[in-house]
């Protein structure tokens, strides 16, 4: 476990997203929605998606959750527009590699790349994973998602 990685876990970039998250205004009309919940943590997240030609054209979330869930949900919103299901899947795979500490193409992840710090914090990875998992659930027509016992 690297001390530096941990110390930067709550860097200003993360805290700023958590304090004033983007994408928090509910959509007028949602084509898909899902609830993400990590019962052991007590994290709760609701996600709405608008879809145009099977591509994401709108995204909003509401979270009662820790800083990492809130920040990840906000950062995620900045990268989703225009992606179809395969695109979100590819992003999730890239994000997973990042969480495991593998170097790689992080440009496509935008601000989410900050979660490379979680390579040193396995117990908190499920928090950062929850928003993407919930979006994937919504796209797959599932009502709920969890990232506990991953």
């Amino acid at each position, binding site marked *: 476990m690297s001390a530096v990685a941990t110390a930067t876990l709550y860097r200003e970039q993360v805290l700023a997203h958590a304090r004033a998250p983007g994408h928090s205004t509910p959509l007028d009309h949602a084509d898909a929605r899902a609830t993400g919940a990590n019962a052991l943590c007590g994290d709760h997240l609701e996600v709405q998606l608008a879809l145009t030609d099977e591509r994401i054209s709108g995204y909003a979330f509401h979270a009662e959750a*820790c800083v990492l869930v809130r920040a990840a949900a906000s950062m995620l919103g900045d990268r989703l527009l225009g992606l179809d299901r395969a695109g979100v899947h590819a992003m999730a795979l890239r994000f997973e590699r990042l969480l495991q500490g593998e170097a790689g193409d992080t440009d496509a992840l935008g601000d989410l790349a900050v979660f490379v710090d979680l390579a040193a914090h396995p117990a908190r990875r499920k928090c950062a994973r929850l928003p993407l998992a919930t979006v994937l659930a919504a796209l797959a027509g599932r009502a709920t998602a969890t990232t506990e016992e991953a």
Partner: protein
Amino acid sequence: MNASAGTPATHDGFDVARVRAEFPLLARTVHDGKPLVYLDNANTAQKPRCVIEAVDRFYRERNANVARAVHALSEEATDLYEGARTALARFINAPSAQELVLTSGTTMATNLVAYSYLLPRLEPGDSVLTTRMEHHANIVPWQLVCERRGARLKAAALEANGELRVDEFIALLTPEVKLACVAHVSNVLGTVNPVREIAAACRKRGIPLLVDGSQAVPHMPVDVRALGCDFYAFTGHKMCGPTGTGGLWARRELLADMPPFFGGGEMIREVRIEGSTFADPPARFEAGTPNIAGFVGLAAAVAFLESLDMQRIAAREQVLLDYATARLQEVPGLRILGSAAHKAAVISFLVEGAHAHDLATLLDLEGVAVRSGHHCAHPLMQFYGVPATCRASFSFYNTEAEADVLVAALRKARKLLV
């Protein structure tokens, strides 16, 4: 902050510095050289040198299987293993070491009671009584067997301050209750339950009482005879002993009537393919090779705790509890869950506007190890309507200076999060 971990003061006749010196892990640092402030003792305790060395020495000098061979090594190992049983039985003042089943921990102890005592006695419409403040190990085993029999689990409610509503518990001791269960000390709230009073009420109604002593045995003198209960479960790793150890004390008559649970070596008298006969308790419930080295270490832990004196440990921890409680209450937005009149040194808290996991992670960055989450006590979280809390749990080796580090770290975290 660096001086905090090793405060060399003598407190209440308790030489904390000297005691701390016995625990190698307490000298550790985490993240960037921060001295570790270990306040997760209700989760598991650190081990004194004598316990570590007893395990080490067993493997270097005595290792053999027990109760199976007649060679010198095996006789030595058997003596050590049975010696641990005797030491543990004495430690909780059990009438006889033969009433103590050695288990892998509290969880195995409660499950043994569930499957071997309760299941054969349970009929549709029966119930089991527990409380809202229990650890899952004192809830889920009863649910699993109740479900099989069409029986029901009932739970007595709490006062807002985290005390058990003893009157309600007693009122719920109706004739269909086949077993009553209660924690001696709550692992979330610190509440010390009035076990004697509860046991007397159970005895009057002929209902056996199981006490979950996981959080009591490490922190106060325990006398199962004086308590008047029927089963008493505890776990070794929380009382400075090795992982994978623990015990179930039960009245001789109850054990004698319990059928075997696990099948295997040591618990049999004679095995034929057509059917087998079984050993007397406690052997009947100790199938297979036990955690021999673990129990040798646990015997050393008992000797260590006895040398410190459980009365003085309890008194010292009360001082720490009072100090930490007062300091924490100075933190803006902080709310402590649980303020029972009789309370052990376990403090669960919430900070307005901050999620428990974020707090725990930020405390960790300052070297402070606390637990956040539901503490294996969902029904208690539901009672308080919160998803999770932070919990600082103290041991006799903690210091006031460590409580100060906790408070300073909390203030810093609050500044970031709120």
